[in-house]
């Protein structure tokens, strides 16, 4: 199977699993359900202003380039030729084009196709980074991983690096655990094992962190 197609299938599967995991308390086939796992509800003081801003394509691409240690023009190019942020998805990602299109200010609300464009940018950048890591003498993320058979500790350390570099903070234990456990979800897929599974896991882990609300808004 083509590697990019595999990643695409895994994204769908991950979404499905994530959605399914949100329903663990539902009865199945009328049978009594398993005890609902209780998650402690964290008390927080909500924002009084709620003035969260969309990062916009240019800022997002700059941040990804910095976090993934990629040249800015290597972050995402549609068909390998056209910059995703500056050209192809410019308006959708909050940019302007006043000269020919007359779009003088960013769209007043986020476009309905913005998540699709954002996903493409993140996935392209993460794929580029991990491919480079696998062939580099000084990788950014896969620094101490035995890609053929990574240990839980190596996966956890790599997960922490994603949070450190992409979000600029320590990952919480839950976040590390979720990413590390996701490796077994990947290896459960047909054709996913060894180095291929580790590669796809790394791309998708990077993608997951890079497409969190925390990464896209500020």
């Amino acid at each position, binding site marked *: 199977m083509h590697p990019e197609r595999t990643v695409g299938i895994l994204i769908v599967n991950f979404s499905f699993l994530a959605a399914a995991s949100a329903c663990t308390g539902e009865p199945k086939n009328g049978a009594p359900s398993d005890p609902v796992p209780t998650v402690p509800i964290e*008390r*927080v*003081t*909500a*924002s*009084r*202003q709620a*003035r969260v*801003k969309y*990062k916009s394509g*240019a*800022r997002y691409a*700059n*941040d990804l380039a*910095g976090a993934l240690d990629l040249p800015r023009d290597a972050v995402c190019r549609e068909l390998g030729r056209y910059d995703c942020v500056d050209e192809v998805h410019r308006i959708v990602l909050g940019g*302007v084009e*006043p*000269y*020919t299109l*007359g779009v*003088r*200010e960013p769209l007043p609300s986020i476009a309905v196709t913005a998540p699709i464009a954002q996903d493409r940018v993140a996935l392209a950048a993460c794929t580029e980074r991990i491919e480079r890591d696998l062939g580099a003498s000084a990788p950014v993320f896969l620094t101490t991983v035995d890609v053929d058979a990574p240990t839980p500790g190596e996966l956890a350390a790599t997960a922490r690096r994603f949070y*450190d570099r992409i979000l*600029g*903070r320590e990952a919480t234990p839950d976040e590390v655990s979720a990413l590390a456990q996701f490796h077994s979800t990947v290896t459960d897929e047909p054709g996913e094992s060894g180095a291929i599974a580790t590669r796809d896991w790394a791309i998708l882990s990077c993608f997951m962190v890079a497409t969190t609300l925390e990464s896209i808004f*500020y």
Partner: protein
Amino acid sequence: MHQQSPCITARSTAAALAFAVSWAQPAGAKPVAPREFCRIYPQTPVCASGAAPCTTCHTTPPARNAYGTQVESALLPGTPRPLSDEQYLGGLPDALRAAESLDADSDGTSNLEEFQAGTLHVDANSLPSRFVRCDSEERALASAQPWNTCAYDPVYALRRIGLDFCGHSPTRGELEAVRASNDWQVLLEQKLGSCLDSAFWQGKDGVLWNLANAKILPESSLKSGDGAADLTLADYEDDYNLFVYINTDDRDVRELLTAQYHAIREPDGALVRVDRTPGEDILARESEDNEDVAQLVPQDRRAGMLTTRWFLAKNTMFTPVPRTTAAQAYRAYLGYDIAKMEGLRPVAGEPVDFDRKGVTAEPCAVCHSTLDPLSYPFSRYDGIGGGDEEESLDPDMEINADGTVNGTFANYASGRLERFVREAGPQIVEAPEAGLLLGQPVANLVEWAEVAANSEPFARKVVLDYWRLLVGEDPQPSDEAEFATLVQRLSSEHGYRVERMLRDLIATEAYGAP
């Protein structure tokens, strides 16, 4: 290309308006009403400019909105219509009070509460802020969170500064330094200072450049200079360069309207002030391969962004009374969009209709009694010629001894309106160069610009542009004190220096409280 009569829209909807007027008789808008409203409610945000917008009571005058209908039904009931101005002013206070406790948009908040809060009384989605300060328990909880949602959070502010001004997030090291420092204000200001010099902020197509889009209204199909189109009128890059130049470093932002120089961008990206006569600019910049780029208005007739080659060509084109130009200047630099009935200050005896456009018709006069006196000072500046050009055009654009040129393209000509007699009628030459802006008489456009630049609406618009850009929305009622302070300090302590105002802005709770 053509310039529409400013009253074409009103004319084309005359039938609809006639119907509305006859259906709603008597429904005349009262030009005396906006000031009377603000005499009664002087402290409300809607009266910040001294007169309430017509949309307080009307949709499109004379048609009333829901609030206007409430006031009308309480206004001297039983008295035959139409009311004289004296009757109207006599009855208005009681009618306004009668409508105070009503709720025109049925959003659960009375009209008076909405006026006091600065929200829209005829929009159910516009509600007073329910902003509640944190109590002690919430403050304790918030201070332990990743973001302190109950106070100004310097780490959050640093992140915003990095993204807003530099175009990327600060490093983890920078964040940790601010988190650990008691002197974090200094670190934030240092970060801001370095970002204000970044290409992301002041480069071509950067943040400041794009802040000027709605003021300059560029069109690549008419561009000269780099990337010239087939049909070249002017190069708007001069406009962008001047805007960025004046908004950076220690420059007085009033020069957006008063500069008698322009700015060019060097190959390394640096902006350089240029003081040249039109003749000098032609000789310095124009060639067979680079035409239509020089600034042609004599230096002593320049008014910053209002008299650039692009602004005049794009907005005035070939109209004798350049209402579109004046309206764009009023909108872009004073924040009043006449098309939205904003900033109306009717002038007695206006409009006169010097160009036979029908502006004295009642539905037109509502706006043109303000717009036309705003426009007269622009009437001596050519856009792209027009009128009987062949009688006065110097095809060779000969340079005079004083450095001026004689052409009818983006130039000043005191006798300009004489060319339009055949097109607009003999009375066109009676249109004065003098006008009125914000209630103040002005002799010409240079004075117009001086009055505008020193006005409160100008300072407010400068701050509002940056507030929207950086905070992400219009100031809310709970922000009014911080916003007003920014406006006040820009024009006093800061001497109209934008970068000093920005140092204040990043220190507001609106910016730095998550």
